[in-house]
């Protein structure tokens, strides 16, 4: 559908500069809300320009430019500009075009020689902004240092900000022909970054700030105690508290346990390997937990503001598959699951974690239109239903009575989505190869329509590559297969890639999940819920106790509506976990380590006293 921009009376291109320092000479509040410094705008039809410095910005109750439904706002990473609007208390525009995700659609799966930022986008189109990379870095650093700014510095920062507005305008002109036939989807993406993402980055995840401070300030001490406790029976960590591969090899020999090795003979030490191996050798679980906690417990990088909120850029559309890609180092849900115990509602409030249940299977059932799979999804637990139909578990089995078998069935069902092979399945579930083969065969026989659809996705990817057509989700997020194809997200890129991996594209359409998540976020925010963060297939909300139930219902309704929109009427179920103050958010996978840490805190407090 081609769009004529003449329908808009005004087209306003925006850029803003901000830091995290509330007062000149103060310290930055990393994890706090942005503090606006300067905002520049250019109205493309009239050529009118606005340059507004901090003092003037703070007293303006609404923007000096039009913000009605006849105005299109254009930015590069609109969440930043709209974050400034939110801090200033300005209304969020209805129509936002964010050129950052639009540029990413052009290079998704491709090499972008100059990167995917504004400079990279300009270079892609053979354009050059008036600000060099070096100059840009210099001024960004100066802005983040904070004031006071001299008159000359102020003038340079304003010029720098306006130069980005001009660059964004040039980019819009260059990119328009690539955007116009998918403008409606571009607007949804812009609404997500400008309205929903900026809201979540503004609100943040509520954190128990006192406990966060106590743990982060005493981490070395706590780490030593955890090693003493968990490594007692193994002796794998050395004197300085680091994991020793040599000691681990000796420990495996001592216990007589086999372990996967790299081609060169060294032990495979990826967390994913540990995750699989502890299922086979549960005795090693404490070591995996400890390694995981050590690698993921980087509290000093966690962005928690002085108001006790974890705020970090969500980097929407950061992955090839268009998902958010917040930094694991600064996002609470990127850290060790044990640390999620730090999430706590404010007094009188509660947090709710609302997630789509068995979402991937539901999406596959809807998109493949496999009636058997749809029936099994709707009639309860799809993993158990598959097991019963394949006669792998008895008809009376439940999640409680057959938890381990259900886990194996889940690995198989989810694995079917991305072409998991029998060897890998056998390895993951710790069962013989013949059993894994039987499971996979049973799935293909019970759900033949899904099997054919899944194969077709791969065919479509390869054949599409031949005629230069990228793979696309239902909302036209593409991925271009490169010379070596497209690797499944979550796998490591390495030079030994043997070539195209068909399974990489087998589950690309499952990225409808990301489209669904974005719509759900937009609807939830618009309906007045305090949406804190998106987490894979879940939303975290925060509400006063007397409104919590209502807000959960609103969120669930929004998620159901989003699934209906994306899946053409097919509605996915949602589950809810509620944690009311003083209860902490807790993930059962991290509870052991969290309890251990909390058990150590009284002693830490005493020693500090």
């Amino acid at each position: 559908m081609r769009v004529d921009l003449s329908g808009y009376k005004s087209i306003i291109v925006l850029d803003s500069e901000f830091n995290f320092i509330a007062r000149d000479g103060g310290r930055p509040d990393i994890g706090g809300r942005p503090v606006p410094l300067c905002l520049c705008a250019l109205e493309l039809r009239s050529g009118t320009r606005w340059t507004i410095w901090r003092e003037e910005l703070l007293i303006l109750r609404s923007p000096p430019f039009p913000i009605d439904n006849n105005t299109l706002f254009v930015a590069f990473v609109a969440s930043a500009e709209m974050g400034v609007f939110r801090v200033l208390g300005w209304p969020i525009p209805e129509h936002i075009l964010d050129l950052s995700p639009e540029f990413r659609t052009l290079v998704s799966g491709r090499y972008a020689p100059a990167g995917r930022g504004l400079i990279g986008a300009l270079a892609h189109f053979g354009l050059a902004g008036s600000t060099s990379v070096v100059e840009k870095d210099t001024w960004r650093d100066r802005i983040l240092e904070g004031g006071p700014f001299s008159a000359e510095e102020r003038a340079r920062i304003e010029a720098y900000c306006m130069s980005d507005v001009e660059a964004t305008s040039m980019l819009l002109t260059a990119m328009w022909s690539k955007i116009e036939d998918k403008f409606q989807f571009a607007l949804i993406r812009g609404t997500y970054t400008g309205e929903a993402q900026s809201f979540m980055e503004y609100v943040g995840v509520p954190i128990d700030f006192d406990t966060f401070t106590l743990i982060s300030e005493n981490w070395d001490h706590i780490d030593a105690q955890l090693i003493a406790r968990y490594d007692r029976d193994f002796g794998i960590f050395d004197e300085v508290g680091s994991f020793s591969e040599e000691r681990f090899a000796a420990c495996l020999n001592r216990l007589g346990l086999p372990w996967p090795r790299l081609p060169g003979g060294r032990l495979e030490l990826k967390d994913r390997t540990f995750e699989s191996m502890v299922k086979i050798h549960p005795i090693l679980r404490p070591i995996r937990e400890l390694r995981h906690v050590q690698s993921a417990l980087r509290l000093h990088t966690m962005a928690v503001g002085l108001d006790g909120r974890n705020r970090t850029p969500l980097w929407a559309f950061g992955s090839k598959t268009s998902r958010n890609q917040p930094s694991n180092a600064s996002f609470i849900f990127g850290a060790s699951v044990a640390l999620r115990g730090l999430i706590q509602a404010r007094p009188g409030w509660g947090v709710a974690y609302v997630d789509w249940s068995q979402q991937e299977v539901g999406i596959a059932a809807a998109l493949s239109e496999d009636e058997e799979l749809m029936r099994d999804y709707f009639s309860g637990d799809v993993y158990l239903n598959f097991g019963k139909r394949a006669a792998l578990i008895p008809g009376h089995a439940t999640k409680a009575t057959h938890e381990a078998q259900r886990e194996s069935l889940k690995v198989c069902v989810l694995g079917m989505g991305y072409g998991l092979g029998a060897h890998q399945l056998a390895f993951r579930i710790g069962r013989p190869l013949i059993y894994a083969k039987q499971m996979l065969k049973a799935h293909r026989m019970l759900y033949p329509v899904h099997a054919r659809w899944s194969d077709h996705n791969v065919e479509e990817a390869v054949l599409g590559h031949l005629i230069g057509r990228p793979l696309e989700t239902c909302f036209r997020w593409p991925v271009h297969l490169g010379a070596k194809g497209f690797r499944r997200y979550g796998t490591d890129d390495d030079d030994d890639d043997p070539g195209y991996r068909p399974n990489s594209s087998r589950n690309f359409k499952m990225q409808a999940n990301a489209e669904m998540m974005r719509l759900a976020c937009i609807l939830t925010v618009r309906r007045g819920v305090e949406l804190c963060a998106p987490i894979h297939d879940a939303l975290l909300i925060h509400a006063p106790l007397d409104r919590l139930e209502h807000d959960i219902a609103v969120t669930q309704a929004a998620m159901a509506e989003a699934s209906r929109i994306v899946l053409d009427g097919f509605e996915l179920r949602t589950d809810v976990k509620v944690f009311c103050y003083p209860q902490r958010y807790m993930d059962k996978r991290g509870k052991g380590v969290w309890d251990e840490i909390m058990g150590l805190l009284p002693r830490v407090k005493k020693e500090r006293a």
Partner: protein
Amino acid sequence: MAAARYNPEVDTLATTKISTEVPVGKPGPFQFFRTDPRPGYADLYWTLEFEGDQYLVINPEARARVQRLLRLKKIFTIVDAFGNTTLWPIGMPTNGKTNRWHSSAMKAAEIATEQWVRIESNREIGAYETWGPVAGELTPVEPRLPTQSFDELMNIAFAEFIIDDPDHPVIRRLLFVGG
């Protein structure tokens, strides 16, 4: 200066792919391919399978020593959708007996001279199934055929796997010859 500016739309200095690695084997289940239709890009060879590797036995005396283990195969040149070249050996009938795996593979290789196909094994019928796109947009898309000659491709693919000596280590091991 304008000429030096990076332009992804046109900025591709002319290059041609020179294959330095040519795998030997059948196409994967989702590897759409075309068979190189040019004369001379397929031929018959005596092959020997040993410890999972495929050898070309070009020495007549060596062939005589392991005659019963030899298989006559036609080696086709195939190219996938990403421009990767593979040599695909397909067994010829032995003693007048036809193997359905081989005959179905041979048919697929022949069809692939005209259109893009992929093969998938079907153990229930003991043969490969050939899948091709519904004719349409793909019809005019031509494969990126290798620039090297068939002999050059064979030399690259079988560099380490040519038995040109009756005392080749593989022959000696098969015949349990010590020393």
